[in-house]
């Protein structure tokens, strides 16, 4: 879709151009009339001045101009001048005999002055004729000048006018362009605000800080955000409810089975019972992991759950929770926790750490070591779990984060979601999840590096 600026310019350009052409033409007409009047005035005064040199000599009309008057007649301010003085009987007293007169043309002036355009010897002329009364009858004094000078002056005037109009048009368009640019600035600010939002940030935009024209858009947008937030909330609730609905019967089944295994006759069917137990455990684990993944999704991670979380107690509690399991597997589980804290969702971070530890305990053989660390690195808080197990080849390090991916030959209970959950929770916290080799190139070090904390 065309930009508002371009659309506005395209709409304005022809209208403005027509307006300016009409204005220019009107200016031109006024200029033409003004120059013609000025030139006519000059011709008239020349004719009137010439009339002063008519006198009667022995009953005959004579034209006796002074040398200065002749020179003035020949070339006055209006350019090259032609003239003819014709007596009452039509006799030529002076000047060019064939010069057309303006006698008979509509009277445009005072004092019996008439003007007209005529052609003489292939030249365009402006002719003024003065009928002046003498004792022997009216004499006809005609003064003419070429129109070339006048036309040139008019052309210059027209050109100048058009140039000014054109410049005016350009400046107008430029002003419109600049005006639209500044006028749309709040819109761009809004666009930047929207662009900077993450899926978690669903708070309303301030409606009072945008121009009136954009307000309905922001209001509609805010409404959409509210709907999104409601949807996130119901997703969050669904995940919690689903967990409840699944965990309760699973807990009942597992507890019953545990009792059954200790019952007097259980020995005979112990293998079968253990298989059923493993199956239910697997079901419980998968359900747990799927729900953990669902609540880690950016959409269902609620912003109101994000708080300042100290990592040290988180690490200590996670290690404490897994101590017995590590011992059963013959593993040395330890912590190296330094003070650090992040803005995050405590439960999600607990899920993240739990999955990292679970992964390490699962894949590290007996007599191995698993160390859980937290601290601050160059101002950035981190969580880290390192083991001295077989390690993950570099080619596999990206794939193991994929959902449902299980490394070939991996044994035991798992559904391939652990590291996908870690990846998802890291993303929600804008943290970087990396997998590298442990100390001395042995084992695996999984690290979640958070951003520098601003508060």
């Amino acid at each position, binding site marked *: 879709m065309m930009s508002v600026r371009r659309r506005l310019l395209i709409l304005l350009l022809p209208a403005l151009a027509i307006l300016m052409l009409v204005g220019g033409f009107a200016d031109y007409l006024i200029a033409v009339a003004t120059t013609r009047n000025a030139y006519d005035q000059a011709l008239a005064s020349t004719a009137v001045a010439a009339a002063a040199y008519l006198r009667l000599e022995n009953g005959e009309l004579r034209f006796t101009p002074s040398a200065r008057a002749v020179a003035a007649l020949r070339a006055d301010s209006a350019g090259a001048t032609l003239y003819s003085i014709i007596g009452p009987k039509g006799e030529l007293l002076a000047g060019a005999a064939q010069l057309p007169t303006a006698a008979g043309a509509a009277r445009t002036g005072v004092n019996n002055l008439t003007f007209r355009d005529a052609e003489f010897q292939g030249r365009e002329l402006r002719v003024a004729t003065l009928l002046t009364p003498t004792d022997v009858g009216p004499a006809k004094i005609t003064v003419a000048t070429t129109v070339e000078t006048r036309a040139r002056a008019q052309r210059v005037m027209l050109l100048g006018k058009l140039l000014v109009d054109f410049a005016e048009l350009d400046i107008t368009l430029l002003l419109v362009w600049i005006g639209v640019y500044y006028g749309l600035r709040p819109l761009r600010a809004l666009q930047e605000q929207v662009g900077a939002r993450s899926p978690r940030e669903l708070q309303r935009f301030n409606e009072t800080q945008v121009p009136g024209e954009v307000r309905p858009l922001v209001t509609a947008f805010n409404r959409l955000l509210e709907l999104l937030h409601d949807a996130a909330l119901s997703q969050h609730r669904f995940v919690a409810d689903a*967990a409840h609905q699944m*965990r309760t019967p699973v*807990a009942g089944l597992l*507890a019953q089975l545990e*009792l059954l295994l200790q019952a007097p006759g259980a020995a005979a069917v112990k293998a079968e019972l253990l298989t059923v137990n493993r199956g239910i455990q697997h079901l419980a684990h998968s359900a747990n992991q799927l729900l953990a993944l669902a609540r880690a999704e950016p959409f269902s991670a609620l912003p109101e759950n994000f708080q300042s979380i100290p990592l040290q107690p988180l690490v200590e509690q996670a290690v404490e929770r897994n*101590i017995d399991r590590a011992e059963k597997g013959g593993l040395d589980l330890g*912590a190296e*926790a330094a003070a650090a804290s992040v803005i995050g969702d*405590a*439960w999600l971070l607990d899920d993240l750490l739990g999955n990292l530890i679970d992964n390490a305990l699962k894949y590290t053989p007996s007599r191995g070591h698993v160390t859980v660390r937290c601290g601050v690195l160059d101002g950035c808080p981190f969580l880290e779990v390192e083991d001295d197990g077989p390690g993950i080849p570099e080619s596999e390090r990206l794939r193991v984060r994929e959902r449902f991916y299980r490394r070939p030959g991996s044994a035991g209970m798992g559904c391939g979601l652990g590291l996908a959950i870690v990846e998802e929770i890291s993303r929600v916290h804008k943290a970087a999840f990396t997998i590298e080799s442990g100390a001395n190139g042995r084992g695996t070090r999984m690290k979640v590096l958070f951003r520098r904390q601003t508060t």
Partner: protein
Amino acid sequence: MQHCAGAGEASNHSLMRILLVEDDELVADAIVRGLSRASFTVDHAPSAEQAQVALAVEHFDLAVVDIGLPRADGLSLLAALRKDGKAMPVLILTARYALADKIRAFDLGADDFLMKPFEQAELAARCRALIRRASLAPSGMVRLGRLSIDLLGHQLQIDSQSVELTRREWLVLESLAHNLGRIVTKERLMQALSGWEQDLTPNAVETHISRLRSKLDGAAVIRAVRGLGYRLDEAEVLPR
């Protein structure tokens, strides 16, 4: 109301009574039988209202309360219980994922929090730890398998035989016994000892721990958790 007395294994907590408040029959039945087998006496109430009735007339050493109950939920039962001035330990059970629940439970005075599904053994162990901790304050006696620690009389007995401890070993054991089943950091042990030794090194703590271990002679376990500290546990006979 279902009443199930502990049968079988003779033990010193057969007199310990637990009130289980849980509406799911499958879970409740398993917990009643599981805890009875672990030598507790268990009363079962399927709703908060029935639990209130039982609490009004009987004495319980511990309540195991599920959050998701019909009508009044587990947390409001907990609140009512504390309001009535009942100080017995309460373990909250939940199948629901919500951090807010956990925080509220502890705010209302819960002593422990366990997510479903859980292992019976873990539930029994937590019940034991809670009851021990609760009984610690009035009697000053900690019983742990063959161990009997008299915190007021500064006496340690294994199988009713007195064991002589140095002052420092006693201080270490005292710290650990006060926090049964919980990790005690090395720093805290050092603080406990610092009144007695001027130049205390972390190695000194290890020395005292290892001497204490040899005196306990396997009657109880002092587990070292790398980077965190030490935990006093019952010597378990791990089923292999």
